[in-house]
């Protein structure tokens, strides 16, 4: 029987994780890197979260992981952290040239390092520093530390890092190590009239971390990264209480040691933090099994200027007026600092399997996903990528090792395009991830493939599926490569009722193409989408958009205009302002229309009660632009 060959759960999970993201990041190797003005170092007992030393200062992810063109002019992904690491991608260069009209000869270079002299000075009053020192909480006024926490990962932020400097950045960074530290910091902020911006993983894509230029008070960046312990695990109720600063991959890794997982896997999970997930209403890839953050959270503890907000019990559901969790989730750091979260956990699944289905066109694919959602049999993850994204994924195919594999690939291609008559420029692919115990997974797999067949789908193998998921983790690295060659890009998302999915996808993509043309972009942009989550009543759609900006004097401005047009198109097509990225400062102009005047007023009044002197930065959406 197969049973004999089954690896142990924990072991398997490890395999899965490596398979999946293959982070081999090692804790012991990273010495503390925090630079402190004070003499005190963080408590030695603490293990450090991914340090900024390991991460790029002007781009996405780890320093050692990036796309490059090697001496032969072939694309290659460096480092050993990802499965793609060290592999050559033979068709990628051609794809880039064809898609963007980019050329390897036209290169831009980022500044090699941060120019400390450009950085706005740190203005902190001495009384506060004295009080802060008394608390023994570590802090830093170092330029690099402050710049690192002055931004998220929006395109314009990265662009500024590469070529300019922010006008306003935090004046001081503090590292609380526990809930009590946060209480003290918030009290001090109120006392000294400072402005706090909570900082988790720094992966925001909504300009939420951007410091308002006109903020005259001292801005304190409250970095939660040192609050990263799992406080307890309750196996009877399958919950765990975790400090909010823990980063996704550490949380899963540590839970896995006890045989558990949360199953919450946003694409940024290598870097984003639990507190950040709560603050932005995050959504994970495998939400079909585990749920989104609002389904996962059992209890939240948050420190506000008004005091601590929490519930008196840890129950699955309660009817006690509007759920205060729902004020906290999505508050994007404007109401307080989330310090501890009790989150549901599950035993690590025994078996995981990727899969993929080719559809003759996008319409059929969407119809299939809709049917899967209707029958409520969606696998852990099911995504439908359009043709452009399929080709994109294809371009990231590593060099094939053996003639046999390449022969097989050719045969597959022949079967699909010639025998089945799929047009390679129209077909699209759904990628699947099944999870659970083995029998059920196989059964489930069959059910889903049967539905797919009804919509003209053809099973296309595990490999294609897996590569699809890999793309999500390396896409952010790709943007950095693009930036080197005059290509800028970004992703954005929305949620939309089922019946409008097709119209929305088509119109938004078309709008992007048109806007690019109108704004003088010289080559047709990459404008592609995928249906990335399915729900009973609709779907989440994710867009990638990138273009070659050679010949444009102000690419970021042009880019922002196009992104705004795309968002307007989404709204006009019945899509939401955001499914999981949040509003931040980037999308606040639409907040009022999204939730009505009264709705915004409701949020505002909560803000006024909780944080009357706006100790927490509020330029996010309470001051939504009035038209």
């Amino acid at each position: 029987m197969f049973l004999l060959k089954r690896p142990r759960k924990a072991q398997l999970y490890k395999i899965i994780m490596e398979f999946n993201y293959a982070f081999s990041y090692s804790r012991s190797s990273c010495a503390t890197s925090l630079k402190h003005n004070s003499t005190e170092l963080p408590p030695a007992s603490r293990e450090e979260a991914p340090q900024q030393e390991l991460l790029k200062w002007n781009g996405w992810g780890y320093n050692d992981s990036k796309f490059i063109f090697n001496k032969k002019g072939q694309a290659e992904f460096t480092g050993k952290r990802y499965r793609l690491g060290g592999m050559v991608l033979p068709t990628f260069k051609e794809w880039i040239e064809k898609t963007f009209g980019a050329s390897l000869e036209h290169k831009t270079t980022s500044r090699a390092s941060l120019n400390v002299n450009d950085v706005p000075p740190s203005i902190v009053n001495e009384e506060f520093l004295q009080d802060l020192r008394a608390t023994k909480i570590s802090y830093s006024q170092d330029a690099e530390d402050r710049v690192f926490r002055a931004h998220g990962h929006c395109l314009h932020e990265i662009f500024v890092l590469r070529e300019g400097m922010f006008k306003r950045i935090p004046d001081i960074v503090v590292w609380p190590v526990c809930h009590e530290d946060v209480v003290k910091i918030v009290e001090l902020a109120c006392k000294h009239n400072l402005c706090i911006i909570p900082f988790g993983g720094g992966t925001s894509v909504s300009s939420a971390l951007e410091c308002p230029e006109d903020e005259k008070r001292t801005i304190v960046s409250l970095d939660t990264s040192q609050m990263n312990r799992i406080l307890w695990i309750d196996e009877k109720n399958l919950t765990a209480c975790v400090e909010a600063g823990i980063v996704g991959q550490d949380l899963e890794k540590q839970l896995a040691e006890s045989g558990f997982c949360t199953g919450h896997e946003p694409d940024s999970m290598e870097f984003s933090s639990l507190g950040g997930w709560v603050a932005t209403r995050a959504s994970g890839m495998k939400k079909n099994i585990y749920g989104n953050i609002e389904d996962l959270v059992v209890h939240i503890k948050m420190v506000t200027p008004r005091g601590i907000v929490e519930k008196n019990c840890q129950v699955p559901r309660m009817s006690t007026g509007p759920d205060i969790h729902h004020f906290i989730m999505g508050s994007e750091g404007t109401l307080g600092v989330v310090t501890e979260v009790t989150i549901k956990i599950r035993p690590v699944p025994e078996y995981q399997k990727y899969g993929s289905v080719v559809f003759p066109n996008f319409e059929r694919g969407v119809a299939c996903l809709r049917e899967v959602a209707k029958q409520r049999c969606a696998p852990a993850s099911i995504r439908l990528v359009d043709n452009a994204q399929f080709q994109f994924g294809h371009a990231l195919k590593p060099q094939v090792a053996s003639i046999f594999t390449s022969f097989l690939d050719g045969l597959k291609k022949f079967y699909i395009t010639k025998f089945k008559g799929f047009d390679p420029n129209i077909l699209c692919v759904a990628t699947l991830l099944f999870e659970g115990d083995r029998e059920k997974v196989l059964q489930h797999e069959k059910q889903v493939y049967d539905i797919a067949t009804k919509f003209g789908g053809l099973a296309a193998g595990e490999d294609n599926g897996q590569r699809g998921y890999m793309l999500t983790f390396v896409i952010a690295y790709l943007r950095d490569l693009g930036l080197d060659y005059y290509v800028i890009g970004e992703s954005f998302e929305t949620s939309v009722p089922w019946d409008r999915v097709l119209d929305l996808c088509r119109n938004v993509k078309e709008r992007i193409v048109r806007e690019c043309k109108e704004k003088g972009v010289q080559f047709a942009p990459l404008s592609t989408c995928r249906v990335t989550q399915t729900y009973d009543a609709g779907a989440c759609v994710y867009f990638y958009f990138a273009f070659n900006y050679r010949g444009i004097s102000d690419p970021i401005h042009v880019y922002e205009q196009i992104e705004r047009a795309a968002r307007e198109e989404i709204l006009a097509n019945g899509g939401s302002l955001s499914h999981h990225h949040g509003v931040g400062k980037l999308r606040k102009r639409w907040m009022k229309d999204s939730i009505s005047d009264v709705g915004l007023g409701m949020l505002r009044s909560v803000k006024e009660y909780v944080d009357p002197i706006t100790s927490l930065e509020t330029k996010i959406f309470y001051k939504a632009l009035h038209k």
Partner: protein
Amino acid sequence: MAPPTARCPRLPPPRRTRQPGRGGAGPWAPREAAAGGRAARRGRAGERGAGRRGGARRTMATATAATPGRARRGAPMYSKELTSKKRDEFEDILEERRLSSDLRYAMKCYTPVIYKGLSPCKPNAIKSAVLRSEQVQYVIKQLAKEMGESPDIIQEEATEILDEMGHRMQLGAVRFFAFTLSKIFKQLFQRVCVNEEGMQRLQHAIQEHPVVLLPSHRSYVDFLMLSYLLYTYDLALPVIAAGIDFLGMKIVGELLRRAGAFFMRRSFGGNRLYWAVFAEYVKTMLRSGYAPIEFFLEGTRSRTAKTLTPKFGLLSIVMEPFFKREVFDTYLVPISISYERILEESLYAYELLGVPKPKESTSGLLKARRILSDNFGTIHIYVGQPVSLRTLASGRINRCPYNLVPRHLPQKPSEDIQEFVSDVAYKMELLQIENMVLSPWVLVAAVLLQNLPAMEFELLIEKTLWLKGLTQTFGGFIEWPDNLCAKKAVLSGLTLHSNIARLVDGHVVLNDKGAEDGAVGEIVFRHALAVLMCATYRNQLLNVFVRPALVAVALQMAPSFRKEEVYSCFNFLRDVFSDEFIFFPGISLKDFEEGCFLLTKCDAIQTSQQEIYPTDKGSGTVSFLSAMFRPFVEGYQLIFRYLSKEMKEAFTEKQFIPGVRNFVFQHLEKGSTQCYEALSSDMQKNALSALVQLGAVKKKKMPNGFTYNVNQEAVSKILDMFDARIPVQKPVAARL
């Protein structure tokens, strides 16, 4: 199938305008490349016979489907180019037909350019898609529930409606028409002229987005004219909204159906099933890009050759898929079809005088074949710039009224949307007017009508030439045939229109045959007939002249030259004539300013800070302009007088028309008025509806139609305003 006729006119390969700096290596979307390839192939096919069209081709570089200025709430989307704009040149498509075989032309290889995403389907497939659609099914279920009937019965009813309505476009019928229309057109018309650049723009538009063709409607000839044209240029044939009355014609109705006509009942406001089926039928064809959709904004043929105020129903249907974002965009293409001599001119005049319109019938059509021996001059078709609905709507429709209700539910459009639809309708009609070709005869008719009963020929020529200059100043689009000298042009107009006017002893007189002898009544009738026919041609100028002319009339009406007073009078006239002429809604001040600007441009008036006054030099122009509109000013007064004096009780339109006609007739017989045009039922109806809008007449819906109640006092007040006995009370715009 026969090989393509070498000489049939084809569009030359489209030139793509490249933005400067855009290298040749920068391919935009692949779809475009494909389209280019196709067009290039088509271009080669047309190359052989294309030499003589080189001239037209040279000017085609600008053929992109860009759209005019965008609209914003508050700032109207209509702003007329005040400088005379450059217009495309015309090509005669009949010339080709006179040189080569019609049969071969009818059998030519027809592979039209179609919408990019279109997968071709049969007319019946459309019908069944409509029946299956959620929209229709929803209404069927609703009705079944309400009436307690089985859905099957209602479904059956829907099927019948569809069968009555649906077109059955067939290439065979198209070829039949291509053949017969070639023969007929060659017989009737000297030339059928088209702006090829417009066709080129249309070709692009059809590939890009669903297209709605909005031609003007002056004659039955309009009906298949565009189809004929599109066939000639190898473009996708339109489906055409036609009145159900055509189905009354045996054979012909069915033939039209096969040529792409679909039929709508004249009124179906209350019938929800009909509305649902009809709307869905049109939208299904639009959404899929099945074919360009053609309909007449004016709703019916204009009997007076003056553009009728637009109907909104069908327009709002074709706009809805865009509002709901079922399509990315929709192109609206204004098309101006003008006739040097209108086929139905005398029929119209009779009709306006109360002789009923003959019912559409095949035998009637056959009887009408005697006109085949007549000459009807030239037709000019100007295909306007396709207007992107998306561009029009941008900034206008911000909120998304369709987001909160499933899109298949019938939903009454919001006020915003209704207002937008109306604005678009007026904009399209104004674009039609702007591009409507005016023949020399139109000028002759306008001059002649002011100089009845007879006018010296030389003077007529002189005046016509003068009017030509004035018309061009006002932005009118005059096609003066081949640099003909004025005398020859006027003479050729007189020859073509010998039934209206003729030259007697060096004088030009109206041709009111039978008016010399007979009873007084007969004389009046005959004369009225001639005047109305002549007026049909003058009328073509009116919408070009209306703004400056109403300023001129206001100048004469106003008690002083003070700007506010002149504007008040202008505003009053604009309100009174809102159904008579085409004004973009809600921009009275802008219209006034435009009128003043144009009058200043031709030195007719001068303006100071506070005053507007006619110059000595321009008094001729001012009096000509007010004389041009005098029939309307006098006619309306006459009709208003009738209403204020004679109509004490509630009445229907059926009672009103004969009543007012008699009233005017008596005055004409007595000689107390010379305003023959007040006999026109068109003017009478417009005057009544103006009073309804001004609130002086109450219109009430009754089971058997509408009834009207006159508020005598209000009407006489309006009459007093005409005489400027009491000041026109209107809030004066602050910006004046």
